[in-house]
């Protein structure tokens, strides 16, 4: 079950973040962003299909990726709290993306070395996509941080607001440690140096102040979510819940 949990942590992150981004559809501040957001959501949903597909296979109880995505209630999801944060203004959406991408890219890179060939393969494909995500989100954080007075203030506020949600992805629990020991999924704490380097560098260029303190909200990885999670799942799972016998 450790591997199942580990894979849902990966797949639930991409699912929930992809879902959040997709809420922007048609409402972005500029057409290029509508395109970029749809594109990222598409990548993340695609990655979800792989991660949750593999999780279902590993579980071996006849579920598939869709069953995992659309038939679990909140406490069975293992995504970090950061990705379920509401979109807020576009600055918060972007900062959330950047903080996540800065972890996601090196994590996928490390996953390419997994002892499980299936994991390594998914990670390699995903990493190519996410390398572009981090490039894009870092660039925008820099341009808006070092932009107008208002854009700077909004990006700093977004950073301060989301900072306490960034630590969770780099804190290992017992499951993580066993998975790391087995060579399947790297210890999330091992991603910290790469994350710090990207974040420090980008924030500096963006003229944004890295918040002090390391307090980290936790619980998502263990299925203890925020109040937002239930509200996110209700529409997302609506059709599967309302019409359990249907195929789509």
């Amino acid at each position: 079950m450790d591997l199942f949990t580990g894979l849902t942590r990966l797949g639930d992150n991409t699912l929930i973040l992809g879902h959040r981004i997709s809420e922007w559809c048609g409402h972005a501040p500029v057409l290029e962003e509508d395109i970029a957001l749809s594109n990222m959501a598409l990548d993340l949903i695609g990655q979800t299909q792989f991660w949750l597909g593999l999780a279902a296979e590993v579980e071996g109880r006849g579920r598939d990726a869709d069953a995992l995505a659309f038939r679990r209630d909140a406490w069975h999801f293992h995504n970090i709290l950061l990705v379920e944060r509401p979109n807020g203004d576009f600055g918060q959406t972007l900062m959330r993306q950047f903080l996540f991408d800065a972890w996601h890219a090196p994590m996928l890179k490390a996953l390419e070395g997994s002892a499980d060939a299936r994991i390594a393969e998914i990670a390699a494909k995903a990493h190519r996509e996410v390398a572009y995500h981090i490039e894009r989100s870092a660039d925008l954080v820099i341009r808006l941080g070092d932009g107008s007075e208002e854009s700077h203030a909004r990006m700093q506020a977004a950073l301060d607001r989301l900072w306490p949600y960034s630590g969770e992805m780099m804190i290992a629990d017992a499951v993580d440690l066993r998975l790391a020991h087995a060579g399947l999924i790297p210890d999330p704490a091992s991603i910290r140096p790469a994350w710090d380097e990207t974040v420090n560098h980008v924030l500096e260029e963006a003229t944004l102040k890295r918040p002090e303190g390391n307090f980290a909200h936790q619980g998502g990885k263990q299925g203890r979510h925020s109040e937002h999670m239930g509200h996110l799942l209700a529409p997302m799972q609506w059709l599967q819940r309302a019409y359990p016998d249907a195929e789509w």
Partner: protein
Amino acid sequence: PEMLAAFQARIDAGERIEPKEWMPEGYRKTLIRQIGQHAHSEIVGQLPEGNWITRAPTLERKAILLAKVQDEAGHGLYLYCAAETLGVSRDDLTEQLLSGRMKYSSIFNYPTLTWADIGAVGWLVDGAAIMNQVPLQRTSFGPYARAMVRICKEESFHQRQGYDLIRKMAEGTAEQKAMAQDALNRFWYPSLMMFGPSDKESVHSAQSMAWKIKINTNDELRQKFVDQTVPQAQFLGLTVPDEALAWNEDKGGWDFSEPDWNEFYEVLKGNGPCNVERIEARQKAWNDGAWFRDGLMAHAKKRDARRQAAQMAAE
């Protein structure tokens, strides 16, 4: 008048007009209006489909829908670029959309009420759009014609996906089948309206056709659409909501009822189910995004200033 005749001769000879070449003011204006409206339609068209992205029932369907909406935004982008070659900026066109001076396709003022509607939009709405757009690949204005080639290819892909979606519904549970039928009921006549009023009523048509901005008449295209769509509905086991529908052996096509043109004009006037909401949504996106656009501009200025300063220091 001489130039006008030469211009018309080029068009008649099937030549493409390119942005920097001379063109009559009326040609330019008509094209700006037509391309602008088309671009706006792609943008506003994201909204009824976006309405179901957060509720797509499987990961695969969600991905397909995301890809589709992304394509539409992309089409918007090509079309704004095509319009820009005529000397109007995207911001200017956007401003005209938001203030109500420019229209978008009325079909997007209808709501998407069930998941089957997403299928119906692909099957019927994109189907009608393609019917309108395929001839425009041969339109006289180069950038527009080239945009159309690209767009048509993607749209026909969307149409197949929409048909696949609604087929799954039509072949599904009783409730799914009911949703599919209901979607057809609600989208049938609005789709027929997408070809515009009957040729008898249609203004500007003759000039546009002479300029090859418009290739076929509204009624021709509508007939073609009906002839294509009726057998598809039959294959799905769905009933087209038109009691007058009947095969006409003589013309080798279907006889069908006209849509309610009063409804068409009401929706054009702003009284469709979603007119106000669509524009409100776009206004909100635009207004809420002002700081973002301003921030990027401010950054670009700073960067340029720094670059210049560095250059001067180097010299």
